[in-house]
């Protein structure tokens, strides 16, 4: 054999299987030379499947499940010199062309090792957390199809998952945690790494190196599931009620496809949507309910305050008067203040007048202590970090901060809580921002409105109900 040949890396089938089994990939996502891929296809280690399939009067993208006519278009293709369809729905993950197949590994599947002692976390669970953890362990062991964990905001759901993940890894299962937002992936990844020191773990999100996702434990954004097929024995879907999961059918399609036939799906939510509540009440969906926070204190119940001229005041960039009165006499003026508004425009326009007024009132000692964030704000991550470091006293935000982020000691106010963007789930989540730490387990939550909405009533009822179920009255 010549020297050149030796220098060419020659992956073994085992290595290839580890990288490619359980995946559904475009040609350019497979980092193998044409010759090698051709050979592997010939040996039936890879199988090409049609990427866009005709279905009665529609067509379907086999990667994302899209069937919506407006999300297909035709392209006069340079590669095949024909005009044909491509999928516009999942194009951010690389373009699916009708003339190119998707590839699945059809050789031997990877046998994941039975990890002996995977969990290195030595913390202790509260009795409520332990109960949920036990249920999850049982579900994993028994190959139960589904389990919904309904845990209030601040219940400490991440730690709750550790025993179940531990069990799965001991049984040689592959586990994926899918969460809607990349920030959450980045935040959870180091926690998982230190909780499972001996286990290979990978984080997948837009912009991360996703080509060789070959770890036994994976944490990914929900979109990344589009690249998997029959890969995971346990799929944990975080915030099943959150955007985009509940609004985007292709993510459910991908989640279903990403698991092996005999597998367990764990759903996590603090505010289940109607579909799941219905299935729970009909006893069609096994669930476990954790009504208490990890620190053992009840959820702060929102107070509501009528503001008669709210819309006019907001239109003229004026903070509503009852809001100012409340700010002046908060129980604990040391707490930072998180203010939610319904739109980006209001967040931007209200910023300066509010800073000016708070400064005059002595609530903040410089106008720079107040800032605003919204989805279109480039510095959003940085500002959130700064607020966490207490470099800002007051943060004015849209619903982007309704979930996922925690600050230890804040009071929360919503201006125009009756606005339709604040649905029941959003209101419960926002209220759940207060009282998150052991050191300051309470906090005020205020809904300022000019006509109470059904969502407000439902949110308050549901918070009270959770407190009652948690043993508080």
């Amino acid at each position, binding site marked *: 054999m010549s020297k050149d040949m030796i220098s060419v890396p020659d992956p073994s089938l085992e290595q290839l299987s580890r990288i490619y089994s359980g995946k559904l990939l475009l040609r350019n996502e497979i980092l193998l030379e044409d010759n090698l891929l051709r050979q592997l296809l010939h040996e039936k280690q890879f199988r090409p499947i049609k990427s866009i399939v005709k279905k009665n009067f529609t067509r379907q993208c086999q990667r994302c499940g899209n069937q919506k006519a407006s999300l297909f278009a*035709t*392209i006069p293709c*340079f590669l095949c010199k024909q005009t044909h369809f491509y999928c516009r729905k999942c194009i*951010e993950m690389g*373009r699916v*062309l009708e003339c190119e197949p998707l590839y699945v590994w059809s050789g031997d599947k990877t046998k994941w090792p039975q990890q002996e002692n995977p969990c290195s976390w030595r913390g202790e669970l509260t009795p409520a957390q332990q109960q949920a953890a036990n249920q999850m362990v049982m579900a994993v062991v028994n190959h139960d199809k589904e389990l919904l964990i309904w845990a209030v905001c601040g219940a400490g759901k991440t730690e709750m998952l550790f025993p179940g993940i531990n069990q799965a890894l001991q049984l040689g299962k592959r586990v994926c945690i899918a969460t809607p937002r990349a920030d959450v992936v980045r935040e959870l990844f180091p926690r998982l790494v230190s909780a499972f020191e001996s286990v290979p773990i990978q984080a997948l999100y837009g912009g991360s190196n996703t080509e060789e996702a070959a770890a036994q434990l994976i944490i990914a954004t929900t979109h990344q599931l589009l690249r998997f097929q029959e890969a995971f024995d346990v799929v944990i879907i975080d915030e099943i009620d959150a955007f985009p999961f509940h609004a985007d059918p292709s993510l459910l399609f991908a989640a279903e496809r990403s698991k092996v036939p005999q597998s367990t799906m764990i759903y996590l939510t603090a505010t289940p949507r109607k579909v799941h509540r219905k299935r729970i009440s009909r006893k069609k969906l096994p669930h476990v309910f954790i009504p208490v926070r990890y620190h053992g204190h009840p959820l702060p119940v929102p107070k509501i305050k009528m503001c008669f001229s709210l819309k006019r005041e907001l239109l003229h960039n004026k903070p509503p008067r009852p809001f100012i009165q409340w700010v002046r006499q908060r129980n604990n003026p040391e707490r930072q203040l998180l203010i939610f508004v319904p739109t980006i425009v209001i967040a931007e326009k209200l910023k300066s007048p509010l800073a000016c007024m708070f400064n005059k009132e002595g609530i903040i000692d410089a106008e720079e202590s107040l800032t605003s964030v919204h989805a279109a704000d480039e510095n959003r991550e940085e500002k959130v970090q700064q607020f966490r470091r207490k470099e800002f006293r007051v943060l004015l935000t849209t619903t982007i901060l309704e979930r996922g982020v925690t600050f230890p000691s804040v009071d929360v106010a919503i201006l125009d809580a009756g606005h339709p963007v604040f649905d029941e789930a959003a209101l419960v989540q926002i209220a759940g921002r207060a009282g998150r730490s052991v050191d300051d387990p309470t906090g005020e939550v205020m809904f300022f409105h000019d006509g109470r909405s059904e969502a407000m009533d439902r949110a308050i009822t549901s918070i009270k109900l959770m407190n009652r179920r948690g043993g508080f009255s």
Partner: protein
Amino acid sequence: MNCIWCDADIIPQVNWGNLFVLEKPKLLCPVCEGKLDKIEGKRCVRCSRRSADKVCSDCQWWEEKEGERIIEFNYSIFSYNEMMKDMIAKWKYRGDYYVGEAFKHSFITAYHEKFAFLKKNAVVVPIPLSTRRLKERAFNQAKMLADFLPVETIEALCRTHGEKQSKKSRMERIYADNPFFIEESINKSVILVDDIYTTGTTLRHAAKLLRDHHCPEIYALTLVRG
């Protein structure tokens, strides 16, 4: 109809004005359409940049340096604002071919307003992609724009594969070697078509080559002035 960009339903507005005239269907919803910035008001007559001067300082510099005018003028339709950046990225780099359709009407209108004087004596030459890029993208966005126009398109130029333009500094770009070579000489007026006019270097390289092969006069029509 759904908006090409945000996929929202577009509800056709019927009023007395258009009740009897069939309006062309809108491809962008009013919100998305409103985010595009059409260049209006004073602009440089040579390069279409917004400018108070009749000929902007860049174009004066070019003319001094070259001692002649290689491109009669460039006409651009939109500025390169955030919305346009996003649209171009999805169209060109993600390869969402259909996004280009959103520009069809504006592109044809600009041709009729600014180039009608050439009558049928002109041909359109799109700025080519290298074969490698073309294989990645499966289409050439400049060719797509060129094919919108009611004149003959001739793919007279070829492009070698080099570094990405965007990775070079301004000076490097200006003095970079000509990446094009010619496949067919044209002795008619030529309208060069590309998606973006940034420094004008790319178009000048193409124009020089055409002119050195007997092309009498060269214009440029670009979607965006970067």
